[in-house]
């Protein structure tokens, strides 16, 4: 019985298609762990909150916590071990802003020296006029951005109580005009981007559309109508099936259809 399980467990796993999981994929780790603790959860398996993970010399990353010297999962997702970190890639979850995130925000409120923008986070974030490339006069913010406008901004200055601000000074940041915005789950953003941008490139070259992906799960798409339509469909597939392996092939196939 025990031996049987051994054989089953290790065989398919190592050869499993890893797809575009990322450059960080480390298979050596896998082999090294085989001997000592066969019961512990393997990389790429589904874990649930409260499940004990490998407590080896890892740092607990996202979706995990340490208690009494052991590491447990705190969200449902797929286990990822990239020494020195062990973390869980969640199936679902809220967008929680991090310093440096480039996100697509929607202007909600115009103030005298700032705008409040919605990042799909629990709170609106202020975009101060000094954080824009424009010379804005006091009280004239409304002439530059109005409620409903979409902007690409960077998250900055997060403090302990997770208060944040956003800025529009920088490469690739600014107001968006034209195009459409498609919302996907923030946990699927890495899949949309792909290994160092491979998925974006694949979609852009196949359809001729232009895309900007925000860390908050908003994707801006512009181009010919046909292309936009196709990209949105592709994004919906990624959103729905993002955790599957072989996603790139699936998307390739979809883009080549018709």
């Amino acid at each position, binding site marked *: 019985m025990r031996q049987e399980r051994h054989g089953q467990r290790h065989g*398919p796993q190592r050869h499993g*298609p890893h797809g575009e999981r990322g450059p960080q994929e480390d298979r050596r780790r896998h082999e090294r762990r085989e001997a000592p603790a066969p019961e512990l959860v393997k990389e790429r398996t589904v874990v649930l909150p*409260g499940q004990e993970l490998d407590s080896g010399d890892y740092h607990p990353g996202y*979706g995990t916590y340490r208690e009494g010297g052991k590491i447990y999962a705190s969200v449902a997702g797929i286990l990822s071990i990239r020494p020195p970190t062990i973390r869980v890639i*969640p199936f679902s979850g809220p967008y929680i802003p991090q310093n440096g995130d480039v996100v697509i925000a929607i202007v909600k409120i115009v103030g005298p020296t700032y705008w409040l923008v919605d990042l799909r986070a629990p709170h609106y974030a202020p975009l101060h006029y000094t954080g824009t490339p424009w010379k804005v006069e006091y009280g004239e913010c409304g002439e530059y951005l109005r409620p409903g406008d979409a902007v690409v901004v960077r998250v900055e200055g997060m403090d302990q109580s997770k208060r944040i601000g956003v800025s529009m000074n920088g490469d690739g940041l600014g107001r968006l005009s034209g195009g459409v915005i498609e919302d996907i789950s923030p*946990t699927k953003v890495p899949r949309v981007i792909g290994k160092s941008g491979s998925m974006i490139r694949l979609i852009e070259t196949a359809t001729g559309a232009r895309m900007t992906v925000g860390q908050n799960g908003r994707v801006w798409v512009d181009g010919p109508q046909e292309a936009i339509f196709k990209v949105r469909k592709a994004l919906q597939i990624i959103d729905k099936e993002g955790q*599957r392996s072989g996603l790139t092939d699936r998307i390739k196939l979809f883009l080549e259809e018709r």
Partner: protein
Amino acid sequence: MGSVGAKDIPELLDANGKRIDGRDLNELRPLKIEAGVLQRATGSAFVEWGENKVMAAVYGPREVHPRHMQENTKAVVQCRYNMASFSVDERKRPGLDRRSQEISKVIGEALESVLFVEEYPRTSIGIYIEVLQANAGTRCAGLVAASVALADAGIPMSDLVPAVAVGKVAGKLALDLRKEEDNYGEADVPMALVPKSGRLVLLQMEGHMTRDELKTAIDMGVQGCHKIYEIQKEALRKRYSIAHDGGDAQ
């Protein structure tokens, strides 16, 4: 219908020690959990437990309303337990009553103990439990559903929270009471467990039990909770087996 006399009280235990629905004393009612049943909520779950039908939805973390309840160091857990007017035999007057306020409070506190509320300061996590059909043990069913819904929402938590009631029926301790046993039995002790740490996060008692009986009841309840825990995990696995069929899962 008639006056409630000794005649109307059903025989709660038969000669073989079987219960009114044929269960053993430490046997649970059939429990079915489905995760991710609602489109609009961040996370959701539906529980059918015996004749109980309970839906739970989770929102958040989101802005706190009313604002003055906001806390600067942690998220507030806002829980609402509600029974549908058609959930019981005689139409229940809709809306909050003393009973549902109490249950909302104890369920919210039980769940707050497993959530990492410090991760989301100045926000609120909303938990909505709707009882569609009731047959005793709805607070436990609601808690079971809500904890699966929280996991479905992807909100970090230290463990799932299974819950079950143990009661005293015809002088014997019995796991997971149904309506008749609850109404005509001698005691009802609902409890919720954090399986990983063995901590009880909800424990209430109605009726009478001796000290020793209560201890045994807790032991029975803890065992029951472990069974429910497995079903909760199964429900989540099933939910994600569709999203993840990478062949190397499990």
